[in-house]
């Protein structure tokens, strides 16, 4: 479920290039997520119960991940509808489907990074397995 599969094959640059851009987008966010999760879980463990902080961090990660996935698929599924609705009702906000998908890909990556980071810290460092 990492790099969410793309369904809209419009006139765009070649596949390999597209894939590269996407991987970089999700990847950067993912690494950021892992770092943030590791640092915050280790910090939280010093202050409080390790299991609880791991659980909270993981839950927050899955919150972002789920939110991103929902937003991404929402943008793909409803994108055209939202764009035409804004046009017809004259309430343009500059919303575009590709923009939304890019933002959501970042959130998906970050959330997944947090989940993976917590998993790593939890199982390797704290030995919860």
């Amino acid at each position, binding site marked *: 479920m990492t790099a969410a599969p793309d369904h809209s094959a419009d006139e765009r640059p070649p596949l390999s290039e597209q894939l590269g851009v996407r991987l970089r987008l999700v990847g950067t966010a993912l690494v950021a997520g892992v770092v943030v999760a590791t640092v915050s879980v280790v910090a939280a463990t010093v202050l409080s119960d390790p299991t609880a902080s791991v659980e909270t961090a*993981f839950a927050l990660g899955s919150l972002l991940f*789920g939110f991103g996935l929902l937003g991404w698929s929402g943008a793909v*599924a409803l994108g055209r*509808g939202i764009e035409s609705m804004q046009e017809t009702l004259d309430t343009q906000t500059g919303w575009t489907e590709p923009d939304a998908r890019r933002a959501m890909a970042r959130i998906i990556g970050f959330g997944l990074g947090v989940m993976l980071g917590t998993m790593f810290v939890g199982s390797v460092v704290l030995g919860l397995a």
Partner: protein
Amino acid sequence: SSRFVLKRLLLLVPVLVGVASLVFSILHLSPGDPALTIAGERASEEFVKQVEESLGLNDPIWVQYGRFIADAAQFQFGESFIIQRNTTVREVLVNKLPVTLELAIYGQLIGVFLGIPLGILSAVKQDSITDHLTRIGALAGISVPIFWSGPLLILLFAQVLGVLPTSGRISVLYNVEAIRVTGLVTVDTLIAGEWDMFVSAVRHMILPASVIGVYSMALISRMMRSSMLEVIRQDYIRTARAKGQGAKITVLKHGFRNAMIPVITVIGIQFGGLLGGAVLTETVFAIGGIGTLLVEAIKVGDYPIVQGTVLTFAFLFTLVNLGVDITYSILDPRIEQ
């Protein structure tokens, strides 16, 4: 084409995984303790531990997450904790879903079949009294909350005039369970050929469906009006008119199909609002569907039911929008490449 439909169907996967992840995180971030909820406040510590064990709450959270997603993918949520003990969530949902579905369908029908003509009327007679009345009426319809308009309608039509029933789905004299096929009472009674029962079911449906339908009607008529105005302004309508056809026929023939395209997408998007409205409408009219079920489950902490209902809501919303998308691509073939 079938490839397009398949692509859209595939979107259900990220939607459901996304919703399941959200539900998972909310359940883990919320203050309640499921083991304690099942075991009861006064249960012994050992029993609570036992329950924790059986629910797998002692596993690392990522294991719980994986299991949760896998179960959710199969619509497997286990048994209800509290609301209907020892009944699987699936069974509870199968019972309650048609109730909400029926309400939403009739509400949507009222919204569409009143909203579209009203919108067209408004557009054709732009800035006339009819136009203003329609728009003010729609605005008023949205301003009054369902949980006030509902009671008022019940008081007027059921208590004062005595022409419609107050609450429920069908008269208590009838046993609908005996003839259950689809779970939609208006359909089941017809299938069974029970005319009296059918009439009773329809009479029970009128008020709740109207209350909930007003909301979609308001949005649809507004959308239809501005979409229609846009189309009327376009050149080819003028050309058609210049050729000497009657104005009315021109509007309907050329304008309608094009004006419908944006309206259809709105129908899909506002379906979510309709489901939200169902929660309140079901409460007001004492119709036990998945809306009231969700509220009850959140209140008492019946987590499996919460999960099941939320996922069902998401599933429904996505399916409706899938249907909308397909209709859209039929109306406007340029979309599909």
